[in-house]
């Protein structure tokens, strides 16, 4: 099956879930929405509905973070941003986008028991992608002695994801707090000059 077709199916799944929720989304609905035969759908997702829903969650979370990455830049004409600046922008943008993600908020309110386990399977994949995005940027920074960029990237990615989902004590809409969080705490052990 082509990448385009898979993309179309996942897009269709998202649309069906947005309309009907997770519990009521059927393979038939998705096949119809995507304009493919049921057999095609089942060939692509042999694990059936659960497999498809998990894949759709992963797909949307990946898109979510792609949007964040694009938003925080820098643009192609601009100088690269320092690690601290990137993390600050990322936290603020991601938290705002999460709060405004209508479907996520609806599903958390009404179908958390279906969504959260799906997200739990997705999160390690997202953490790995975020780690791989962070690592080269850490390698370009002045790292403290004993810091391994791969390890630091993984620890940061997991901590950032936790903060985005549950800011807790941190007000991620307050630039001062975000700055302190990133420079005085998260990166203090990683880079030599948090600026």
């Amino acid at each position, binding site marked *: 099956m082509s990448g385009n077709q898979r993309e179309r199916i996942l897009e269709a799944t998202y649309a069906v879930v947005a309309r009907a929720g997770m519990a009521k989304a059927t393979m038939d609905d998705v096949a119809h929405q995507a304009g493919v035969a049921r057999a095609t759908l089942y060939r692509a997702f042999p694990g059936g509905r659960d497999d498809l829903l998990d894949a759709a969650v992963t797909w949307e979370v990946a898109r979510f973070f792609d949007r964040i990455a694009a938003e925080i830049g820098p643009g192609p004409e601009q100088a690269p941003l320092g690690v601290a600046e990137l993390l600050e922008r990322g936290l603020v943008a991601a938290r705002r986008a999460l709060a405004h993600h209508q479907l996520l908020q609806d599903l958390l309110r009404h179908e958390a*028991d279906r969504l959260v386990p799906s997200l739990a399977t997705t999160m390690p994949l997202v953490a790995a992608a975020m780690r791989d995005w962070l690592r080269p940027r850490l390698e370009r920074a002045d790292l403290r002695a004993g810091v391994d960029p791969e390890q630091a990237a993984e*620890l940061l990615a997991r901590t950032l994801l936790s903060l985005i989902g549950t800011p807790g*004590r941190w007000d991620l809409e307050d630039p001062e707090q975000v700055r302190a969080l990133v420079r005085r*705490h998260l990166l203090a052990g990683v880079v030599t000059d948090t600026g």
Partner: protein
Amino acid sequence: MAPFAATDRYRSTAADTTEARVIDATLRCIARWGVAKTTGDDVAREAGVSRATLYRAFPGGRRALVEAMLRHELGRFVDSISVDLDAATSLEDALVTGMVGAGRFLRDHDALQYLLRHEPERVLPAFAFHRLDRVLAAATALCAPHLARFTSPEAAAIGADWAARLVLSYSLHPSPVLDLADEASVRRVVGTYLAPGLTG
């Protein structure tokens, strides 16, 4: 500074033996059969109380029982590490003790492990998004006073929060970067990545 005052608040169920018996009985049932197959009758029988007594102990129903269980288990966790925490001679020691202890507590928690394996939809939502807020706040309230011996109260709270997040992440999704079962691994991560950011 009274390191155990906060613990008492969360261990209020210890003063009421019926509540504590019901909580322990519920956890034993869940460890055996999970949540779906555990009935009020099972819990009452296991606790050695009548259904009426059970409902009087938790008039708020299941929700109230779950809240009480979480508080009770957090209190039990802090009790389990408090002697070692008191013996800590540095912030890093205290963090390592807390994180290794927490990792072990979660690994050895039969009810939790049963649910993670067989009924993740019953337990994961309690540790996600806004519901994780309360868990973090409770863990911080219990652990920060122990860390505050070595740094400012603010840094202690930040440290407890940060450590709790990492413990949860690495308990649910293990990786060799932070092996909670290996004190040397935890010490390396705490010393390199956490401690420098917690100097108060």
